[in-house]
């Protein structure tokens, strides 16, 4: 066996490992992707730092950027894992949680909480509140999307269209309610909902990271089961997988991941789609042990790369999500048109 540590870029010893070469070679895409990600992460941290390297000021700036970096990493992981899981649950690769209005739903839940309970709810902090909010969101999402997927005649395009329009509707209702809020309530709410990569919600960061890590670990343990789930209801049941329970679990996990991501940077419709579609292109097979890490890696590269290029080359840091929306939207159209052609 070749241990992973020996495969790190500085420790590659291909000659000794001649017979086992294919073993590390199969990790090559992953190594490249994560290598690029790490390089980009370091660049984001260090590049264009006005203070001289090594000085106190230098490290202070790096420290501030570290928060932004952590936000990016979290969002990338959440979106990639959520999308791949969602594809598994829905047994197709066009739907993504965001296109179906998952994050609009999150915004709606948050807004209605403030709307119903006033600034008391908005001002409240702490873990119980996060759990309560996520709970509502999760229940709602599970009911809604569980219902959408369970239809006997569930038609892919109908699902998509309903999801897209629902997302638009959620957006309308949220904005509508936000208009009815008092200015102070609105301020508190909007500070919550629309963070951006520049000023991630630092207070949430540790919780968000912990939750995400737990979920990723859980998903990784269940990856083989999810391979079966991806084959659809009948096959799963035939192979002894409790299909319905797994689907519900997946939807719950997706809801949590999306809510983490939306809290950090706000809604991003096409990012997950972009990442997952690229990941499937590079993966050698459809098993989750292949697609999940690749998706995470590509998610990191995309978001870090966009951040780096926009922030340091075009000095337009606020536009990252817009650019990704554009690229992802175009890709989505292409995929959709191709599927329509077939």
């Amino acid at each position, binding site marked *: 066996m070749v241990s992973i540590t020996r495969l790190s870029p500085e420790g590659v010893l291909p000659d000794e490992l001649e017979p086992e070469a294919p073993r590390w070679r199969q990790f090559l895409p992953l190594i490249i992707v994560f290598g690029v990600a790490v390089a980009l992460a370091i660049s984001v941290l260090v590049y264009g730092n006005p203070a001289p390297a090594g000085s106190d000021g230098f490290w202070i700036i790096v420290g501030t950027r570290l928060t932004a970096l952590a936000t990016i990493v979290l969002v990338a992981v959440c979106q990639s894992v959520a999308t791949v899981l969602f594809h598994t649950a829905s047994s197709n690769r066009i739907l993504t949680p965001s296109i179906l209005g998952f994050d609009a739903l999150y915004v709606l839940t948050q807004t209605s909480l403030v709307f119903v309970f006033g600034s008391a709810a908005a001002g409240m902090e702490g873990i119980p509140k996060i759990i309560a909010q996520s709970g509502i969101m999760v229940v709602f999402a599970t009911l809604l999307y569980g219902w959408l997927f369970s239809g006997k005649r569930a038609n892919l395009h109908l699902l*998509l269209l309903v999801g897209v329009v629902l997302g638009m509707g959620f957006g309308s209702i949220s904005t509508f309610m936000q208009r009815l809020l008092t200015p102070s309530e609105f301020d508190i709410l909007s500070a919550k909902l629309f963070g951006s990569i520049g000023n991630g919600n630092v207070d949430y960061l540790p919780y968000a990271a912990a939750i995400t890590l737990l979920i990723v670990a859980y998903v990784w343990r269940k990856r083989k089961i999810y391979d079966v789930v991806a084959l659809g209801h009948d096959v799963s049941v035939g192979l002894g997988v409790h299909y319905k329970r797994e689907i519900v679990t997946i939807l719950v996990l997706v809801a949590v991941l999306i809510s983490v991501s939306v809290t950090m940077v706000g809604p991003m419709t096409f990012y997950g789609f972009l990442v997952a579609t690229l990941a499937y292109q590079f993966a050698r097979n459809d098993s989750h042990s292949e697609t999940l890490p690749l998706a995470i890696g590509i998610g990191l590269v995309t978001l870090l790369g966009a951040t780096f290029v926009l922030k340091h080359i075009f000095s337009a840091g606020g536009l990252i999500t817009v650019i990704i929306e554009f690229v992802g939207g*175009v890709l989505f159209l292409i995929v959709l048109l191709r599927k329509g052609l077939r």
Partner: protein
Amino acid sequence: MSLVKDATGQSGQGTPVRKSGRSPVLPTASRVATDAAEATEVSPAPRAKVWPLALATLVVVGLLATSLFVGAYDVTNGELGAEMMWITRVPRTVALLLAGAAMAASGVVMQMLTQNRFVDATTSGTTEWASLGLLLTAIFAPAIGLAGRMAVSSAFAFVGAMTFMVILRRVVIRTTLVVPLIGIMLGAVVSAVTTFLAVQTNLLQMLGTWFMGSFTSVVRGRYEVLWVVAIVTLLVFLLADRITVAGLGKEVATSVGMRYETILIAGTALVAVAAGVTTVVVGFLPFLGLVVPNAVAMIRGDNVRSNLPWVCLGGVALVTVCDLIGRTVRAPFEVPVSMVLGLVGCVVFIAILMRSRYRG
């Protein structure tokens, strides 16, 4: 007018052509609705048909009158009231009338031309193109004036609608549902570009205010250009039969001796002008052109020409009701009509979708 007679006259020999051109367009829902409406629809008493329409007109007039008297300022109060009436209330009500009728009518046109009942300015990305045009005028020609803005905006809407139609033609198998999806996604991509430009030029906030469909800023001196869409609506009425025939598909339309491409472009241009002008003056009116024609078709069947007055009335009624809700729900302030409309439209749209789902 004679065109439709030709079409029906030929349908004796050409029934299969007509059927194949038409039936994929219309889900069974509409056919059932036609059956239900047959009694009033087919019975040849033309005078009997006038009454419901007159009644509906009366209702809409009532709504418009209500709109005149609802608002923060008491217009029944003396001389100043009368002045305010002419400064804001009358222009606003006229704008509701014009925009509602035009957007609903152009919804019908789009649905005929794309042979798909889920298409309108919202679900084809046309409005997003119009707002891109609007933004570009603000960036490159801020002094161009209202007419220029509308021209550019309409031109962009035209490009957008044409792009949409070209893409649709390239898709060989277009299921009914994939068509609006493509449109919505196209709109999302275009609006990402618009947002990008707006952020770059510091116009994001301004764009938000423009784009948020609202009749708040419609006052004397700022709405008159909206009369352009009255012409659009009129032209839609005049071209109704031709557009209906074009809706049967290129083969049928050509075989009855119609210049299909001309009608297609003319229809698209009408829609574009309606979308462009409305976007500049009022903003985004989501789902209006989708919900009203579908509701009318469900009740009355698919006779486009006789439906058109109903569609226009329905459009006016819906916009007016939504605007009234927006004005009263948070009394001294206003909720933009686009939000109310978005909410209502989304619910109705999904109801229509689900209806078609359960009918198979």
